[in-house]
């Protein structure tokens, strides 16, 4: 199954040379200004949805609002590309729903749903070039989609047949990282390598509001700032870290964390795909132009449970979820597409059919996914081999064979 990529992908340019653009520089200044407000008051802005600092290009009602700083990053977006963003979000949500269903049916052991975070992921994912590199956490199914990773590959680890079923270098999309925060350092190191190579690629590291508390994330801020590494830290603040609200991790808005490390932070409406696209493009251009790291806080909401093992009724109220439903990322882009006449009924109908087909194919692919061979236990523990692994593999083989003998003997 191949991935039906939508938005135009720029050519791979990892060997290209570094070149600043005037636009990026201007934006860099803007971004700096953007981080100047300080709040030392407790537990206020962290919870507010309608933060005055929130970058928004599309209102929940689907109205396009002007933004002097960021409009330039989406001015060239064609109606076709807009429909592409919409399609990406719809198909990602469909895939996600299918995975949740498959978990209920016992085909997956677990699923971490991205429901509600489609705009943050598709907006940022579509801002990337092919030669950029993505370091996800475990919920970036929408970003994976943008990178052209076969969605069924994402299911392997949730089914329990592997711990990550794709080649990170095929699509410059690293494996999911479960231990919270670790990947931000890998992203920083990778970005340091890009800089050493003199390339103008960039790196994006995804993490959550909960992850912001991990020492590793702070260390990645320090390293990236000191080495001026071309990395964008993309924090999806979905308001919850399992059962803990964001106030348990910080008492000021998370985007402000960056300034104390010497780089800009910006909060974007994470349910606004256009704003996410624009802000991420700005941040990536800064990186390419040698201006170093940026922190983007995408303010969004985890509409579902933390994972299929979780029961959110134990710790949060339904009305919170209901309030966020009004800000649905797909709905608002649909409204905009409709009022601006960028999409017609045929488009939506076709997408509905495509969506169904995707669901069906995912279902079939998962059900057909074979269990790994027993000897896979011993494969890839080492690249160059290890005497003890060889010994244990041989013992295991002999042990397995003894059953075959017995069975054969019967």
């Amino acid at each position: 199954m191949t991935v039906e990529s939508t938005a135009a992908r720029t050519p791979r340019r990892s060997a290209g040379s570094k070149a600043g653009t005037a636009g990026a520089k201007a934006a860099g200044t803007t971004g700096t200004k953007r981080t100047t407000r300080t709040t030392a008051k407790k537990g206020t802005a962290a919870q507010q949805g309608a933060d005055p600092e929130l970058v928004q290009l599309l209102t929940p009602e689907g109205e396009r609002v002007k933004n002097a700083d960021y409009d330039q990053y989406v001015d060239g977006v064609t109606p076709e590309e807009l429909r592409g963003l919409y399609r990406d979000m719809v198909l990602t949500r469909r895939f996600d729903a299918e995975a949740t269903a498959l978990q209920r049916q016992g085909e997956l052991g677990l699923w971490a749903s991205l429901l509600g975070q489609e705009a943050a992921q598709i907006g940022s994912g579509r801002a990337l070039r092919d030669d950029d590199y993505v370091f996800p956490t475990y919920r970036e199914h929408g970003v994976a989609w943008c990178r052209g990773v076969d969605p069924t590959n994402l299911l392997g680890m949730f089914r329990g047949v592997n711990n990550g079923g794709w080649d990170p270098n095929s699509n410059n999309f690293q494996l999911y990282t479960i231990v919270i925060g670790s990947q931000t350092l890998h992203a920083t190191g990778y970005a340091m390598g890009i800089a050493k190579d003199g390339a103008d690629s960039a790196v994006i590291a995804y993490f959550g509001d909960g992850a912001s508390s991990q020492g590793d994330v702070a260390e990645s801020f320090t390293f990236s700032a000191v080495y001026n590494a071309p990395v964008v830290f993309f924090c999806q603040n979905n308001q919850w870290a399992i059962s803990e609200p964001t106030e348990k991790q910080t008492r000021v808005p998370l985007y402000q964390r960056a300034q104390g490390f010497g780089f800009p932070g910006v909060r974007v409406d994470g349910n606004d795909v256009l704003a996410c696209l624009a802000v991420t493009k700005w941040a990536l251009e800064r990186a390419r132009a040698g201006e170093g790291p940026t922190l983007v806080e995408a303010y969004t909401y985890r509409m579902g449970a933390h994972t299929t093992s979780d029961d959110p009724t134990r710790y949060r109220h339904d009305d919170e979820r209901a309030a966020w439903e009004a800000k649905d990322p797909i709905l608002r882009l649909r409204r905009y597409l409709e009022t601006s006449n960028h999409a017609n009924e045929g488009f939506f109908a076709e997408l509905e059919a495509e969506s169904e087909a995707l669901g069906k194919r995912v279902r079939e692919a998962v059900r057909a996914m074979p269990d790994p061979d027993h000897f896979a236990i011993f494969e890839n523990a080492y690249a160059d081999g290890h005497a003890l692994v060889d010994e244990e593999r041989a013992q295991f083989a002999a042990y397995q064979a003894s059953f075959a003998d017995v069975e054969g003997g019967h």
Partner: protein
Amino acid sequence: MAETVKNLAMAKAINESLRRALETDPKVLIMGEDVGKLGGVFRVTDGLQKDFGESRVIDTPLAESGIVGTAIGLALRGYRPVVEIQFDGFVFPAYDQIVTQLAKMHARSLGKVKLPVVVRIPYGGGIGAVEHHSESPEALFAHVAGLKVVSPSNASDAYWMMQQAIQSDDPVIYFEPKRRYWDKAEVSTEAIPGPLHKASVVRDGTDLTLAAYGPMVKLCQEVADAAAEEGKSLEVLDLRSVSPLDFDTIQASVEKTRRLVVVHEAPVFFGSGAEIAARITERCFYHLEAPVLRVGGYHAPYPPARLEEEYLPGLDRVLDAVDRALAY
């Protein structure tokens, strides 16, 4: 405590033990990720925040080093924190604070400072989980002086060993065998428990000793049942404590049975079985009819769930080791 005997799942037994500690000692605190309203991902702390408040049952930021590091500070202030690490594979961000600070501060202060901190770690596999949710890192703590390491195998021990761990003035790493969380047993809330670090003989036998702790004790009992059908009499030890190890009890058993197989989920290489084999061979050199054999994980990362049955010690693999030992 009205009732004195209850039939409890292990998770519930730990919950009741924590509740009792919170009730009896105002200095006891519960800390960890999601331990509050959610009651922990395994519900071990269910209802405790509701009844004892946010000041005593504390949802922490998502940072394990911070959890253990602040628990040390709280202990210095006179508190007795019981810290939850959500899963085995997530203890390593706290490893530095555990092995360098928690383990050594008592000695560093020439005994002036005591750190009565309990670190609870749900551990081990067999529940079909994703990566980092099935590891057995006990050897990485047992090697470190200053820590005590225990693991109950049943609800009653879980209850009492938690009481003792909290009362201990030393830091205790308390490994909870997550695949036994739902196994029920009679728990008396008034029994007088034996010492925390004493192994117990859970089945008498004469031909060979099986030694295990935590999740593998039940398996070893099943092995002994199966072996009995074949006419072999196996003694089963529940070690209960990994540091210190109760070598006296193992030695006494091996002097009788003359053969020993150690079973754990953790990788065999540098695992508990190595230490037990080395020391028991020293103590029982002239008694042993066979080398001490070990059954455990392979020297490979814990595999994806669909392979864990092959990776983990199971009935057949332990029986195979028993047969090999008896063949000497």
